[in-house]
């Protein structure tokens, strides 16, 4: 069953058509990659899914419900989490607090006036946060300031913040950009495990073909704002159109 259904989405910036007639169907529990050369509209598409941008026309359905016109926090509360291209975390807060915030969001919804409650009393949420920190092997950095983490750790923290919400759909915008090979492989393993164990559907935008082919079950190739093909990784590799538009370009 398709958990995310994008139909006929158009988005123009001034005279520039960033997206034209994009259709995308993501099956539940799969990893779906979106690839394409720079300026193909990948990030624009992602921004349309999370409420940052409003498409000019078309529809975006998540689990049978339209997400268009909803605010980012409402879309998140439906079960869509997003990992950004540059890690977006709460730099002034500790690592534990960074994880606690999505825990509160999950339990209490978009707003709750807990001004007279005590942080230390939330043992259940603290335990859960400690658990997820152990999962991403960051338990020893629990009380560090998030801003002081290395870039790789910031990414893992952001991932953990998304995971602790148990989203149904996880959107990843170049999760390995700027990483060393070893870190990249760790991230691939982590994502595979997340997908398998937690049964989270993923849409991933990525430039690194190694990552794409190790993770994705379906691949959509975007070029100049339109989907070129959508197929399995093996077929994409052999597709001459894709070679021409993207792979060929990167091999030269």
């Amino acid at each position, binding site marked *: 069953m398709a958990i995310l259904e994008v139909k006929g989405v158009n988005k123009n910036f001034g005279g520039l058509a960033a997206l034209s007639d994009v259709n995308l169907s993501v099956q539940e529990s799969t990893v779906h990659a979106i690839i394409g050369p720079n300026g193909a509209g990948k990030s624009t598409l992602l921004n349309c899914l*999370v409420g940052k941008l409003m498409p000019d026309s078309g529809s975006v359905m998540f689990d049978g419900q339209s997400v268009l016109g909803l*605010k*980012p*926090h409402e879309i*998140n*509360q439906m079960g869509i*989490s*997003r990992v*950004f291209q540059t890690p*977006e*975390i*709460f*730099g*002034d*807060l500790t690592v534990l*607090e960074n994880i*606690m*915030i*999505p825990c*509160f*969001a*999950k339990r209490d*919804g*978009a*707003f*709750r*006036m*807990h*001004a*007279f*409650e*005590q*942080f*230390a009393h*939330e043992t259940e949420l603290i335990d859960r946060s400690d658990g997820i920190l152990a999962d991403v092997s960051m338990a020893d950095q629990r009380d560090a300031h998030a801003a002081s983490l290395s870039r790789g750790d910031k990414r893992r923290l952001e991932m953990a*913040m998304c995971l602790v*919400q148990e989203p149904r759909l996880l959107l990843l915008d170049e999760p390995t950009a700027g990483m060393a090979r070893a870190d990249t492989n760790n991230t691939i393993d982590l994502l595979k495990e997340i997908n398998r164990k937690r049964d989270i559907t993923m849409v991933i935008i990525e430039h690194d073909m190694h990552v794409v082919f190790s993770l994705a079950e379906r691949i959509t190739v975007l070029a100049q704002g339109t989907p070129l093909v959508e197929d399995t990784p093996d077929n994409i590799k052999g597709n001459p159109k894709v070679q021409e538009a993207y792979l060929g370009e990167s091999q030269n």
Partner: protein
Amino acid sequence: MLGLNKKDTSLFLVIVVLTILAPLLLNPFPSETALAQFNAGYPDLMQRFVVFGIFAIGFNILFGLTGYLSFGHAAFLGIGSYSAVWIYKLFTYNVLPALVLAIIVSGFFAVLIGYVSLRRSGIYFSILTLAFAQMSFALAYSVLSNPKFNLTNGETGLQVYANDLQLFHRESLPDFPHLFGLSMGSTYKLGAGPWEFQFNVAYYFCAIMMILAFYFAIRLFRSPFGMMLRAVKSNQQRLNYTGLNSRPYMLAAFVISGMYAGLAGGLLAVTDPLAGAERMQWTASGEVVLMTILGGTGTLIGPVLGAGFIKYFENIFSKINDQVLHQWFTFLPDGLEDFLVAIVHPFIGKGWHLTLGILFMLVVIFLPGGLVEGGQRVERAVRRLMRRGKAADAANVSAE
């Protein structure tokens, strides 16, 4: 204790002890000596310490936690004062209903002003709040003060007149704000040798209010709600993409902070039963910003320190005049004495703002964390010295 951790409890107890003992601690100089003019232990000034302390604590909840710089908080101060005086005029001089109304009305205005202003962030938010405050000032100063409908009594300021309704006022009750008959104006004077200490009812009433306000602020800072506000300051976009709606959090912070200002305004009318429009002017809004930054933005105790600092220097420096300066420099040769007095002259009396400005610049440049950071630096330096001393001792012992 009281749901506070160890460190916060001790901080809280320090504040409690300091405010209770303030009439003693702030009067270190015997009353007949030349130094007595540096004493701050008289009711009028102490009241201002705690009232503006409350104002700054509340302001810090908004500015310190969320980073939204309101430049119009004095509006709530004025609204609080007007509300309290209206209770005096219509019903009773009892301060409790006056304060309750002050908090409610300022909270109501904070909802309106916050709802509109929080649609923008950064400098635009500041400008919107400033615009609202100046509008409130204009309303209070002229618009709402005409013969047909006189809510604020304009330039003169709102005060209680003999022919006012005062429904629940009785002959037996004092003609001054009181707490169930205990007049806020009464002062107990304690002479101890050359010293004289003044224990004033209004001061202690305001001090208790500040202790309560401080306690609520600690609890709020340490609560999940406080964490969300810090998250707004740190990365609002991430907060929204994490399923939290930052807007009601911001509005709640704005309203709480506005109600603190309303309480402070009400307390100003407790110490002196009148309300004037100048209380809402932008300089008053700017003053609370200075207090918070000077003391240490985002720290618990900083705003209180900042408020005390500014109010102290406002009073002391503005009291010093050329005559006092001549007394100080009298040991110098005449020419030099006149010269020094001429140099210092612009910084005292009416020129005390100049001194305050210089102090403020020094703090912002050398202590960006405010007086609190200064305190921390001193503490660290002392620790280092003590450690070095211990290490030296240890070395001596091993050498022997």
